[in-house]
């Protein structure tokens, strides 16, 4: 019992000692997911985020201000996301990097009320691309709607036309998985292809029946796959097993990493599988070289997460766009006393932001918070991911129509 009391006292003390932010520091709230169902993403994305912040600080910060990324792991659960958001607010964070679709939904109203911009790269709420409806939510990268359009465009290019073709859409059966449906249905009308949907129930590791259905009963001409976590690798493995040509499969951005290929049984198995990317793959980008230099100067080995370049690079991109928004905000207010509203304006001034080719030329405006929605297609070929297309966006008018109709 005495031990219990001691523990409770210790706990109370610990709770009381969260360090307050110092004046010159600018805080970014960085939600993350190193544990939980999508930890394969978070364990590589979050180090990328932190390394870029570290790089910026090693170069003297943004206009003399140090940036601090306050990372909190939310385990892909909503209550910790809400709790850590309040903590960011208390620390005076000027932007929040929200992680996960349910979390984006849960925080949308709070972010808007508190006037703190939040980013949701490649997560849900595609309708948030409309900055007039969701002024404080920034998808900043291709939403599921743009991804769906791009996937259809890629299928069209591969098959030389879609008229009368059969497309199978295999998706994780949750709101994020179903989000692309309105765009796919519009495109179906426009391009005149046939489409059937195949839902994979959570946790998404059992899809033998669906895959068999796609390959042998429906006999799809092309497969668009929108899966998360462990399930992309299962899809690759299963499609391979039933003999479906992987060249005719395209995955969305969360089924596009090295880890997915490795979990599917290696590059030999996944040969031909292609996927969409909203940030570049590989280590051949100037910003990554700078990070390596920084580690070399410190006399440390470069972080092993860098090898998982898909998610690591996205983390770098995510941090960089937050920093860019802060830089724009500081330019407008050199005294350094910026608020969330200032960084929101900062986000909306981002133009021709390419990070040395790591990301597409992003331009965010008060009406377009998606920044263009450009993607690249990369394909597994000869033991690595190989770039197949340049940055492109597909069917912008269809996507714009769906955004407009969204409630």
């Amino acid at each position, binding site marked *: 019992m005495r031990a219990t009391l001691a523990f409770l006292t210790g706990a109370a003390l610990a709770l009381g000692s969260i360090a307050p932010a110092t004046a010159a520091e600018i805080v970014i709230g960085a939600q993350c997911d190193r544990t939980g169902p999508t930890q394969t993403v978070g364990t590589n994305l*979050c180090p990328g985020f932190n390394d870029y912040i570290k790089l910026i600080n090693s170069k003297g910060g943004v206009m003399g201000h140090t940036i601090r990324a306050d990372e909190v792991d939310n385990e892909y659960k909503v209550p910790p996301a809400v709790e850590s958001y*309040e903590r960011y*607010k208390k620390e005076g964070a000027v932007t929040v990097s929200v992680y996960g679709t349910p979390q984006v939904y849960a925080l949308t109203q709070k972010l808007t009320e508190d006037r703190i911009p939040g980013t949701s790269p490649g997560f849900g709420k595609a309708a948030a691309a409309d900055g007039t409806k969701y002024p404080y939510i920034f998808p900043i990268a291709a939403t599921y709607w743009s991804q769906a359009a791009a996937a259809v465009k890629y299928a069209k290019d591969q098959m030389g036309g879609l008229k009368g073709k059969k497309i199978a859409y295999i998706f994780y059966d949750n709101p994020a998985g179903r989000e692309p449906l309105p765009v796919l249905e519009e495109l179906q009308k426009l391009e005149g292809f046939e489409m059937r949907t195949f839902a994979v129930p959570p946790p998404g590791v059992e899809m033998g029946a669906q895959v068999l259905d796609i390959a042998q009963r429906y006999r799809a001409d092309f497969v668009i796959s929108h899966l998360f976590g462990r399930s992309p690798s299962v899809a690759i493995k299963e499609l391979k097993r039933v003999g479906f040509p992987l060249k005719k499969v395209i995955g969305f951005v969360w089924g596009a990493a090295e880890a997915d290929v490795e979990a599917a049984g290696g590059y030999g198995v996944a040969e031909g599988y292609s996927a969409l990317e909203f940030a570049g793959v590989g280590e051949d980008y100037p910003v990554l070289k700078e990070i390596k230099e920084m580690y070399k100067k410190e006399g440390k080995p470069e972080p092993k997460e860098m090898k998982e370049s898909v998610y690591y690079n996205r983390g770098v991109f995510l941090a960089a766009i937050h920093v860019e928004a802060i830089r724009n905000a500081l330019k407008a207010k050199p005294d350094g006393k910026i608020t969330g509203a200032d960084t929101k304006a900062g986000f909306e001034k981002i133009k021709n932001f390419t990070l040395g080719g790591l990301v597409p030329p992003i331009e965010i405006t008060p009406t377009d918070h998606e920044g263009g929605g450009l993607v690249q297609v990369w394909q597994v070929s000869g033991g690595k991911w190989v770039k197949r297309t340049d940055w492109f966006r597909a069917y912008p008018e269809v996507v714009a129509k769906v955004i407009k109709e969204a409630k």
Partner: protein
Amino acid sequence: MIHRESGLLKTSYQADMALYPLPIARWSVAVILVLAFLVLPLVLSEYYLSIINLVSVAIVGALGLNILVGYTGQVSIGHGAFMSVGAYTAANLAVRLGAPFWVSLPLGGLMAAAVGAVVGIPSLRIKGLYLAIATLAGQLIIEWTINHVTWISGGVQASIEVPRPSLFGIQISSQRGMYFFLLAFVVLAIVGVMNLMRTRVGRAFVAIRDQDIAAEIIGINIFRYKLLAFAISSFYAGVTGVLYTYYLGIANYEQYQITTSIDYLAMIIIGGLGSVQGAVFGAIFVTLLPIVIRTSMETFGGLLFSSGALLNIIPNLRLIVFGLLIIVFLIVEPEGLNRLWRNIRSYFRVWPFAY
């Protein structure tokens, strides 16, 4: 020392049946109320209030589950889904009909109660683990339905944005406002359960838990009371869902999945089955523990690890420590935190003459 019954003579039935027969208990309840309603909201910052708000929501849910599991002895792994029923009912009412919260909240609860009673029907025939699986089916069916029926879920995204609750024309949007809003319901919920357990219905629940055949022989309609237990418990769950919806401003079924049901079961088991205090302790413990572990790691972890490694270690260590602490608590006191609290109390009751 001061908490003892000697010299306290009850001269009326009313005094004997009072919720708090001892003056000290009445005083401490008054002090807690003053603390909760006046001192805490003035002293604490919005951040800490937001944590308390999460705890408040959890308390209502844990109390409800405790009625079913702790008092009536029926297991349910479907409470997450019952919460979502309440949440979506209220959200639809609020958005489509513009219903204020004092309409949508009870209706959300009632809808959850109706669904809960239906899911509870198998409890008449099956018990224990088998019933757990039956309620698990309820959880999955409700999840699937909300996920796929757009008429309920408001579109493929399955989420409905709800306006903030307002009372007398004032919109409650700050954490401080929410604190009072939620606290009022916590008090109502606690008073509700305490009184329920003193009624004929509550006694019937306990009788069913202790030995259902015996209960039937002394004239308790088992079918009726088991379903009633499911209904009341689901009503609480539904209200929890509504509160959570108003707190976040959005109804989204992904917040009410199986893990949520399990979390609530963990709360009442750690807190102590079959007691109001236990449910409250459990809700506080399970909600706060991850936060406490994280902040203490952030404060003291720097002494042991580099900052880069620390970021990787904290979330994983949090899971490990969380699991370990639950095991330790259950070994030290299988009857939960409530029993621990009673032990402390009875120790001080005879203090300093502990023999």
